[in-house]
């Protein structure tokens, strides 16, 4: 009885973890300088995060001009590119983040369209 109960609890916890409401997001935005696209991308992602992930996200903005080494491991990066490092799976969203719906899908905050 006892074993069964503990298994039930773990399952419930894991289920809870999966719910997007509780997950912590680690995001990285690659930009180059102060191009209008970069400016717009930073503005947009900030707004989206504040709206949907308030208090549970970390956003790194990387200027590839100044810190190209931080792009290592990537062969080609378009600027701006947002990478969702956590929670897995890794996802990337390219562009100035002006289409909020697409960004939300990219962040797995909206179901992907079939």
């Amino acid at each position, binding site marked *: 009885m006892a074993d069964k109960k503990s298994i039930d609890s773990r399952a419930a916890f894991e289920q809870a973890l999966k719910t997007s409401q509780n997950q912590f997001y680690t995001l990285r935005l690659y930009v180059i300088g102060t191009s*209008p696209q970069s*400016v717009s*991308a930073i503005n947009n992602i900030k707004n989206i995060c504040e709206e949907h992930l308030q208090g549970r996200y970390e956003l790194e903005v990387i200027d590839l001009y100044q810190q190209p080494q931080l792009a290592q491991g990537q062969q080609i990066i378009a600027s701006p590119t947002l990478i969702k490092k956590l929670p897995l799976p890794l996802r990337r969203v390219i562009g100035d983040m002006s289409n909020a719906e697409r960004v939300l899908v990219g962040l797995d905050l909206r179901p992907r369209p079939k």
Partner: protein
Amino acid sequence: MTRSGRELIVENEDLRARLEETEETLRAIRSGEVDSLVIMSEVGEQIFALTGADQSYRILVEDMSEGALTVNAEGLIIYANRRFAEMLKMPLEKVIGGSIYLWVAPDSQPILRSLLGQSADGKCRDELDLVSNEGAKVPIQFSASYPLVKGMEGVICLLATDLSEINEFKRNERELKLAASVFTHASEGILITDAHGHIINVNDAFTRITSYSRDEVLGRTPNILSSGRQDKGFFAALWHDLTEKGHWYGEIWNRRKNGEVYAEMLRISALCDSDGKVTEYVGLFSDITAMKEHEKQLEHIAHYDALTNLPNRVLFADRMQQGMLQSLRRAQPLAVVFLDLDGFKAVNDTHGHAVGDRLLINLSSRMKAALREGDTFARIGGDEFVALLLDIGSIAACQLTLNRLLAAVAQPVQIDDLVLHVTASLGVTVYPQGDGIEADQLLRQADQAMYLAKIAGKNRFHVFDPTLDINLRSYHANLEQIRRALVQREFLLYYQPKVNMRTGKIVGAEALIRWQHPEKGLLLPAEFLPLIEDHPLNVELGEWVIDSALTQMEIWAAQGWTLPVSVNISARQLKQANFVDRLRILLAAHTKVNPNDLEMEVLETSALDDLIRASDVIEKCRALGVLFALDDFGTGYSSLTYLKRLPVRWLKIDQSFVRDMLDDPDYLSILTGVLSLALAFRREVIAEGVETAAHGAMLLQLGCDLAQGFGIARPMPAGELPNWMVNWHKEPEWNNLPTVVHADLPLLFARAEHKAWVVTIESFLRGERAAPMQLDHHGCRFGAWLDSVSTARHAMQPAIKAIEPLHLQLHELAADLCALHDQNRNEDALAKVGELKELLAAMLNQLKSLDMH
């Protein structure tokens, strides 16, 4: 090797993801959302800018030393360069995308808010504090710009300059500002010239002091200020110092634009370049004209008396030294006069210091005016002055000046409603006197001579006689001696009995102070009391007298003697506010003495000085049982009204009247007058100065029974008094002497009148007076009396019968002698003077035997 189906599925998904990504990238590029592509490779990254990115501009921004960032209106950091991240001590990636407000100190946030809220049409700049990741404050200046580039709407570019790095610059800038401010606002005048002495700058104070404006002096040399008071040597020395030491400091007289000469304290410094070559001269100066004036005032204060503006002791000493040298050079003696005011202290005490000061000022100018132009007159103490009289010729010649001084002081001074009257005592000494005498010795000699003038009765001068070794110390030394004598109990009381000549009873004794001086022997009060007349010691000594008398009375009481004792009270003591209280205390300390037995003698002159106050004190003493006598009565000028109001019991007739009454009818008249006054005011009378039995007899006949004098007893030590009292008996001559009735007074006058008359005749004959006293035998009072009594009660006495012819002969002979004189037979007249005297003696002899009952 074949891949499993599972592997293929994974590979497919990966490829699909890549495709999706690529499609997504292409879509973003197509829609203009992507600005660049970065392609990574082993040798480095390649950046392909797609739109809008200006690479050369970027490189500039990335590498610049100021922090640069762009933010949106909410403060979101869209872009920041590495330098800005360094300022915050944060990795750059943690900075971009965060809020700028996270890094701004709380009190700076409003500044930033204001910067970010600016309209997009200008630049704005402000200073604020960032807070680094390590918590340190970083002062920065933000320059904000609001680019109007398409696609950057709402973006604000900020340029952050680290102020701590420019602090050094700012400090320098502040110092420069400060220096400029000091230059402009300094109260010292500043003048800068180039190496050739041409003025290149001056400050406001320069203009204020010299009255030259900046424009008027630029390009000119400081010579425009020259007053011409300094000679060439002065400037040569100045330039020498400036060249050798690089600076010069000193006082210099310059001239203002309006021509006025002023004194300045000037410091000139040479400024050199790195090679040591003079580039500028800087002159810093202050106007010390006021200081010089002040200096002069101080000098005046140091040498002049503030109250009277006369030279003080310091300046006088200086003038004396000069005077003494001059005296030797010119072989002309000089005189030093020491002057002390008599009775000044009383003025101060009675009317206050303000009045005393005004009196001093008034007298000072008078005394100064009494001297000659070249003489020095100085004030060296409260009421002490000294004069230096140059080129006096002789002491006799300067007597005129001394008398002028005395007269200047003795004239009354009117101050408001008061008329004050003081005198001066002068001591004079002459220089040179033998060798080696110093200025201070001269002053001491003059001081000593002044003291002798005081003792001799004041309002006079006394000339110091260097040939007499009088060994008298100065006034102050004597004061000290008196003070010491009190402590050492060198004072003592002598007692002079007072008797009733009619009854033969001893009625009391007067206590008289003596000083048993260790060197000079027994001193009479006249030798020391004048010294302290104006001094508080006087009161102290007065109290000692009362206390000693009371103590003596207790001793006598213990021996079975009860004797009223009178003590002399000085005016000063009487005026003490606490006199009555002090007396009460002294009486309480001697309970065995009946206060009725203590009497006070006060001088007529002093009691009347402040009548109301004296009356009050005398009245209060009377309530204690102590009665007063008015001493030396007849010598003052008291009005009868005053006498009536003064509640004294006794009048003591001054001894001068008594002493001479037998020979001088004037004194006898005064005496009879005083006696009738006393009778009228119901005061008792005591005569002083009874030296012979005849004095006593005359007084008894005049109706004055109480007396004292050498003829009765000299003052004696207390111990001798009881013995004297046992042995004394009144003169037999005084027995049964009636008081003559008023009508018979001429009889009493006869003696004095005729003696005096004969004396005048003799001096007339000797040519010593112009005319004798006119007296014919019926005109004289005695003759008139004889005429009237011939039918009256004395007519039957044999003495009268004998006197009448003698009187007639006396007058006839006198008339003869005067006639001889008129006939130029003076020798014959003088030969008969002896005869005249014999007749007088015979008549006086008969007078004695006249029975006045």
